[in-house]
């Protein structure tokens, strides 16, 4: 290579000296720094999003309440005396008392754990099962895909609430929260499976996959090392958003009297108990409803923020 500033015979034209070209700005990029991956890019977008900051603070607080309810109240949520029935708030009992004379504040605090555990456990199962089945369908194709897709269609056609009630009716005597978790997962995995299948299908035939096959990696290794990590973004988005909807579903089932047993402190159950006194004492219904709404809102906002960060094409704000 000759120096670009020297002019060879027959090349008499102006060539800007290197100092005058803006090329230097390109040269100043630090090549030794690691390239930004999609995840670090997403994390940078997230940190700047006020929606994420608000929802993250809320979620951390909610998790803290769920883990250590004793920090917030010394009252036993199951200690109820009819003497206190529908008593208004007084010092130490800021939200007053419900019909059975239980402290509403203590029940709201202790209900957090129930809602949160149902939401998180259902989401974990749904993500595991849905991703696995969706990935198998998308990756294998052929008759396996056809069969799995028809099964997804069948589950999709059953309204979630209706199916959940039919199944839960069978397990009325079971008192564990796992029955609600498993039922929500049973009717919830299909949407995740559908999305996982689509994501795997679209990244299956990309170049990096062909390249790693050419380098001799097995299909299984391809699936777990290359295809799945590249299909994770849409799965994470739907998981965050559906966490909130599982919390709503749990409350709805408990409200119908068919979800969690009445011995478990839950917002849905408390709202259901308060509905008969709605006209006279609306505040008993108000507090657990607000707690429920704030929790769901936090997860939905988090879902929005994560979606914005991971899928730049679908900015909502």
């Amino acid at each position, binding site marked *: 290579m000759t120096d670009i500033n020297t002019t060879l015979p027959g090349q008499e034209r102006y060539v800007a000296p290197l100092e005058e070209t803006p090329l230097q700005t390109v040269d100043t990029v630090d090549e030794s720094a690691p390239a930004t991956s999609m995840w670090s890019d997403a994390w940078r977008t997230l940190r700047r999003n006020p929606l994420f900051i608000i929802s993250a603070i809320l979620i951390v607080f909610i998790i803290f309440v769920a883990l250590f309810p004793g920090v917030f109240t010394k009252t036993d949520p199951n200690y109820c005396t009819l003497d206190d029935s529908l008593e208004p708030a007084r010092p130490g009992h800021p939200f007053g008392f419900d019909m059975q004379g239980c402290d509403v504040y203590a029940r709201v605090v202790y209900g957090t754990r129930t809602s949160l555990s149902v939401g998180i456990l259902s989401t974990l199962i749904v993500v595991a099962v849905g991703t696995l089945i969706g990935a198998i369908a998308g990756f294998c194709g052929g008759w396996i895909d056809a069969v799995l897709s028809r099964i997804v269609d069948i589950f999709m056609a059953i309204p979630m609430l*209706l199916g959940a009630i039919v199944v839960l009716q069978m397990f009325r005597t079971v008192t564990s929260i796992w029955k609600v978790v498993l039922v929500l997962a049973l009717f919830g995995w299909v949407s995740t499976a559908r999305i996982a299948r689509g994501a795997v299908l679209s990244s299956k035939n990309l170049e990096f996959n062909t390249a790693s096959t050419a380098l001799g990696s097995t299909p299984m290794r391809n699936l777990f090392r290359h295809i799945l990590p590249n299909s994770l973004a849409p799965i994470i988005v739907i998981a965050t958003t559906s966490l909130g909807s599982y919390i709503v579903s749990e409350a*709805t089932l408990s409200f119908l009297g068919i979800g969690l047993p009445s011995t478990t402190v839950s917002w849905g159950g408390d709202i259901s108990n308060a509905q008969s006194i709605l006209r006279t004492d609306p505040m008993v219904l108000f507090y657990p409803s607000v707690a*429920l*709404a704030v929790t769901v809102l936090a997860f*939905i906002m988090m879902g929005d923020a994560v979606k914005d960060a991971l899928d730049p094409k679908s*900015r909502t704000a």
Partner: protein
Amino acid sequence: MGKYLLRRILQMIPVVLGTTLLVYALVFALPGDPVKAMFGDKPVNEAVAAQIRAEYNLDKPFIVQYFLFLKNALTLNFGETFAGQPVIAEIGRAFPVTIKLALMAFCFEAIFGCVFGVISGLKKGKWYDSVILIVSLLLISVPTFVTGFVGQYFLGVKWRILPVTAGANPGFFDLLMPAMVLGSVSMAYIIRLARSEVSSNIALDYVRTARAKGMSNTSVTFRHILRNSMIPVVTYLGQDLGALMGGAMITEQIFNIHGIGFLTYQSILKGEANMVVSVVTLLTLVFVVCNLLVDMLYAALDPRIRYA
């Protein structure tokens, strides 16, 4: 188009069969003997019980029961409830109420969802855009039954604008609040969907081209932006019509509306297996047909989609 329609209808058959089989299996795995339950507190007369079992095919193996049910269902004979009423008559009484409720909710969410969503997508960043966004987020996070109670308390009890419960033969006015409650969550989703569609379409090249041609603002909005933004909204609406009928269970429970959801919930609690299976079969059919109609609508909205 005709060929495509035929293929889609053929594809519907395994889904409907699979769904009914799944629901039938779930329902008949329910514990508790419904025949014993019919005797109430009286001692069970084994001879009568056996006769009833034979009459309802309960003595046959499960898969035979299922095929007998299918055979009867094809002739719209869904059997009788344990009280001796034909199931089809009970459904016939409840279905119009739910259809009325679901259609009202559907119109409510479609009209208000699109109008607010499009306004806030076109005027992104204005104060009313933020208000619409916040309200829609709130509606999504508050469960339907809480929305129902809030509506009952303020509109019904405090301000006395609308009736608190609907009762047996509800009219338009009685169903107004239930329909708004039922449609509120979907309305919020439609607002968000329409907003993001409109605001992303507004920045695309074809909109700039249309403006450069000298088209008026109104016709750019209506002929180009809206038409392209409506495709996902129509998909959502179509799937939602089926979901509204199933989701009406909570709303019908709160407002005491004697529709399909109310009937199904009572039947599940009573172990009326015939009724549950029949209703779910019908709801599945509604859902599948709605999805088919949505796919047909695509072609009308987007000329690029042509079914071979």
